[in-house]
């Protein structure tokens, strides 16, 4: 019952990862008594569980996820939202109005029109129904300002960091508010354009170097240096 790779080694679909008393975890599958990889990624042996941390993936909705989406269609009783997933998401009008929807008096395009961006939570989803969105919590709803950037959905957990250490550090150092959509879309809102750019730069750097260790420290250093330069300019 051996394991055939070392931890964190790169594997491709079809690679035999382990045989015997192992359990197939993320991105791996069991065939007979053998465990194979499903995606290109880094293998991880966690006791008897074999996971593959995917290097390339796409977002699959899950109930409770906070996502950022774009309105693509205004319907009769709600909106269709592109959430960067294989399925379009639905947002009901009553959800935004916070009361029953009255077709005679409520004008949907006035509330949200095609092209508008929203922060929303996935309210309900299963394989037989398209995801339903909810916006009835603080922090959710239409986005009015800030910058949007796209990252690979698999990298979002790295940007969050252990117990949110990475985002909270970026927020603190740049003074920006950062909302990470689990679907790989990130919203950065700051007081000035420079602050926002600094935060996006940090996020890009994390995306590029997500597999290196000691990243939090290096990002902190980078942000501190950038801030130092700005102070100098002000003094001049």
């Amino acid at each position, binding site marked *: 019952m051996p394991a055939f790779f070392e931890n964190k080694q790169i594997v491709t*679909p079809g690679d*035999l990862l382990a045989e015997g008393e192992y359990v197939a975890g993320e991105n791996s599958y069991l065939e007979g008594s053998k465990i*194979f990889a*499903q995606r290109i990624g880094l293998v991880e042996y966690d006791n008897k569980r074999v996971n593959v941390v995917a290097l*390339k993936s796409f977002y699959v909705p899950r109930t409770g996820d906070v996502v950022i989406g774009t309105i693509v269609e205004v319907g009769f009783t709600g909106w269709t939202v592109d959430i960067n997933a*294989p399925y379009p998401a639905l947002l009901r009008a009553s959800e935004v109005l916070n009361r029953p929807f009255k077709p005679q008096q409520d004008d949907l395009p006035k509330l949200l029109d095609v092209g508008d961006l929203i922060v929303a939570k996935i309210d309900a989803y299963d394989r037989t129904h398209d995801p339903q969105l909810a916006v009835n919590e603080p922090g959710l709803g239409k986005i009015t300002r800030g910058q949007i950037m796209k990252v690979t959905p698999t990298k979002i957990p790295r940007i969050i960091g252990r117990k949110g250490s990475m985002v909270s550090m970026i927020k603190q150092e740049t003074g920006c508010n950062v909302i990470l959509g689990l679907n790989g879309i990130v919203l950065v809102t700051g007081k000035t354009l420079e602050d926002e750019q600094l935060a996006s730069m940090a996020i890009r750097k994390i995306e590029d170097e997500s597999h290196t260790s000691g990243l939090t420290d290096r990002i902190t250093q980078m942000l501190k240096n950038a801030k130092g330069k700005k102070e100098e300019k002000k003094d001049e």
Partner: protein
Amino acid sequence: MNDKPEKLIDKKGLRLDGRRFDELRPLKLEVGTLPNADGSAYIEHGKNKILAAVYGPREAHPKHMALQDRTVLKCRYHMAPFSVQERKSPAPSRREVELSKVVRESFEPAVFVEYYPRTMIDVFIEVLQADGGTRCASITAASLALADAGIPMRDLIVACAAGKVDDTIVLDLDDTEDKLGVADVPVAYMPSLNAVTLLQMDGKLSHDEFETAVNLALDGCKTIYAMQKEALKSKYANVEESED
């Protein structure tokens, strides 16, 4: 070009392009060639030059094609008008429609189609230059593109042909050998699972010859498989380097 050579294999046992009977044509594989696509790959197999692009899983279009319990795989094999000596009409020919189906069915067993119901995965294969064995090269490229798109797969699919030229069983026929030879046996294969997903034969072979041809093709597949894995990994090479 058009006069038929007397012998396809000379006295030394070398073929027209100087290969031995069990030699593959030179191969080049590249992953992530088209940044606009969700996944893509490019293959140069001898004189064959083929691009493969994958989109999805995404909402099924047209919607009535969607299935409630699985993904719909769609594949388009197309030859560019300039891919062959004589201009090929860009409209899909009977042969291209058939190859689209054959190629799709050969990589379908590798994809976990039941994971994303009601969606569609589009695979586009564009042959830029053709020189015999395009279906095999297409399958090899398409499976790399699928893996690059992050679509869960049981294994990478490799394809390679073997056949009979003059009186010898040879590996990886080129265009002339395919047209003037006796038989051609394309095979697609999942090496880790030891499963064949495509097996065709064009021409006449005896039982023994057929078996030799299939085994030769499988050996060729295994060689290409190693190159396929290498190509896929090299796109993410910087990840491994920074690991140390």
